[in-house]
């Protein structure tokens, strides 16, 4: 008979290489990133009446070979942050320094070179692949556009190689997306991202739409690829269990602000910010005895609208520890322990 928790804590494979290619060299750093979307009114003459502060002053850096987790609930700005890095949105303010160069505001032509190095894997494998293109075309098109491999046969070979790397058979080359399951489509999305030999991949909820058994396969694939090609990931997800498993460091966002950033185990074992604590408390753990012993303190209220966010610290209306001064200004993001950053005055 096994006790609580022992079932899933079985050591299945040697995992001493987990930190893999993690180095001290900074690959990308994001400074003071702001993305405010205008809200307009009027039919013929559009007036800007407000703005949605999707991202409102975010700073972080990612080391080469590292996986940084970006977590938070819907509307916290985690996806927008990823899109800003890719320059799919034009940020309102801030710097995105990739390999020592600020890529924010580069023109489209200059971005073409950068995009080879930064790729993205999207959440929904059903809508992120063109339904009218065969898998082969999906994989070879970026190679052709970026002129990486000039002859057709070379591209074909490379595409087949990518399919194999991602655990798909070579005959998938001739298939259409509708002929595949969700997990297989997600593997094609990953193969497409790898086609450019990128250094940095933004995984935007890359495993969220998959069933648990398939999800575990894709998580393992992402980890294998990270080790094999020395990749760096920004892993955007709302699933905290997956984030704890795959990430080296984790950042928590709430309503456009980063509220906490720390090493993975430190963040999950010693969360400091009241929002992080509430978030971790809310996640149910697959262990009945443990669950029955938990307090289940739920935080009240809903996430406010980013058009009209609360003054000062955006979390104060729901915060169990809020004091009067929390309404006045957003607290400084400070380092309370080595490598553990928190934006809260009351801790």
């Amino acid at each position, binding site marked *: 008979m096994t006790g609580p928790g022992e079932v899933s804590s*079985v050591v299945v494979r040697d995992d001493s290489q987990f930190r893999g290619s993690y180095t001290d060299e900074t690959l990308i750093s994001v400074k003071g990133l702001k993305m405010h979307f205008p809200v307009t009114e009027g039919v013929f003459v559009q007036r800007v009446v407000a703005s949605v502060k999707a991202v409102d002053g975010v700073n972080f850096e990612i080391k080469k070979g590292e996986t940084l987790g970006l977590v938070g609930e819907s509307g916290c700005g985690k996806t927008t942050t990823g899109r800003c890095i890719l320059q799919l949105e034009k940020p309102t303010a801030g710097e995105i320094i990739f390999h020592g160069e600020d890529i924010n505001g580069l023109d489209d032509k200059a971005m073409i070179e950068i995009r080879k190095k930064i790729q993205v894997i999207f959440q929904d494998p059903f809508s992120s692949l063109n339904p009218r293109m065969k898998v082969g075309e999906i994989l070879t098109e970026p190679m052709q556009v970026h002129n990486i491999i000039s002859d057709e046969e070379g591209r074909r070979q490379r595409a087949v190689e990518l399919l194999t790397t991602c655990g798909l058979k070579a005959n998938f080359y001739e298939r259409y997306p509708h002929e595949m399951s969700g997990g297989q489509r997600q593997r094609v999305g990953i193969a497409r991202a790898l086609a450019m030999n990128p250094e940095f991949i933004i995984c935007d909820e890359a495993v969220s739409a998959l*069933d648990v058994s398939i999800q575990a396969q894709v*998580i393992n694939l992402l980890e294998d690829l990270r080790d094999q090609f020395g990749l760096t990931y920004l892993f955007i997800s709302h699933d905290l269990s997956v984030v704890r498993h795959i990430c080296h460091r984790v950042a928590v966002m709430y309503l456009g602000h980063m509220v906490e950033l720390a090493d993975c185990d430190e963040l999950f074992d010693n969360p400091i910010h009241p929002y992080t604590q509430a978030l971790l408390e809310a996640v149910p753990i*697959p262990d*009945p005895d443990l669950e029955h012993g938990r307090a289940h303190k739920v935080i009240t209220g809903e996430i406010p609208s980013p058009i009209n966010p609360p003054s000062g610290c955006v979390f104060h209306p729901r915060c169990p520890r809020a004091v009067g001064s929390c309404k006045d200004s957003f607290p400084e993001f400070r380092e309370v322990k080595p490598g553990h950053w928190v934006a809260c005055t009351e801790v």
Partner: protein
Amino acid sequence: MATLLEIDRLKTQFFTTAGVVKAVDGVSYTVDAGETVAVVGESGCGKSVTAMSILRLIPWPPGKITNGSINFAGRDLVQLGEGDMRDVRGKDISMIFQEPMTSLNPVLTIGMQLTETMLTHTDVSEADAQKRAVELLGMVGISEPERRLLQYPHHLSGGMRQRVMIAMALACEPKLIIADEPTTALDVTIQAQILELMKNLTRDLGVAMIIITHNLGVVARYADRVNVMYAGKIIEHGSAADIYYRPQHPYTLALLRSVPRMDQPRQAKLDPVQGQPPDLTMLDDGCAFRPRCRFATEKCATSFPDLESVADGHAVSCFHKDEVSATLKEAS
């Protein structure tokens, strides 16, 4: 506890051009009055179709209940006429769906939708129904209930809409609520609020609940008993402790090992089930899990193992259940 619902060898099939989809293939389980029973499994395992079959909401064509019985409070729901069935839906058994965005009528006010079930099923006057609606909204934690009655679903957030759905489900004091992925579309802090609310309400009102979900954490937190489904069949059932600490079916074990734990440091790579779930039109006589199963032998290809009792209330459908237990013991 008295048995409230007894599903016996239920089969629901969809007759499509691609073949007969055996979505539910001989499922039996019971729900006692006041208890919470979970049905877990991955997409396409038939967990939702079983629930829809209980309420006879399977669209014909192409779907049809082809075999089995569903006994609820002394009546077989499968044999019931459409008129009698309509009296059951929303009154004795109500349902909470996954999508709070699409399961409320966008052109009717919250008040109209809440009172509609009461006015249909009971003899209350319009004024009393309104009063009860205000009371229900208060009970599910919605502020300013009088004002909310006049609002439309698009005025409310996802969490609020799910609260309205729960209020509607409770309106006629049902004996059983079927909740199909009730919190899957919600953020975690909102999910925790809704689950806590459902747990407290079902406990206080003594309502039984079938919770259908793929989230093993939710099951661990709320379910008394658990049914694990794979390819249209229940392959293991037992108390929550049986399923989590003493699983004997390879699929249950694999499912538990596939989810990373948020409360423990990473220890190893995940150990996922290889391969894909089967095509439900191509099932043969053997065990549907065998192509993905590390314990499978020739025997598994020729006959389907019966659901055998291994302990009080714990049953498993696998020829190799002892080997699975042995592996577990070895690992611990």
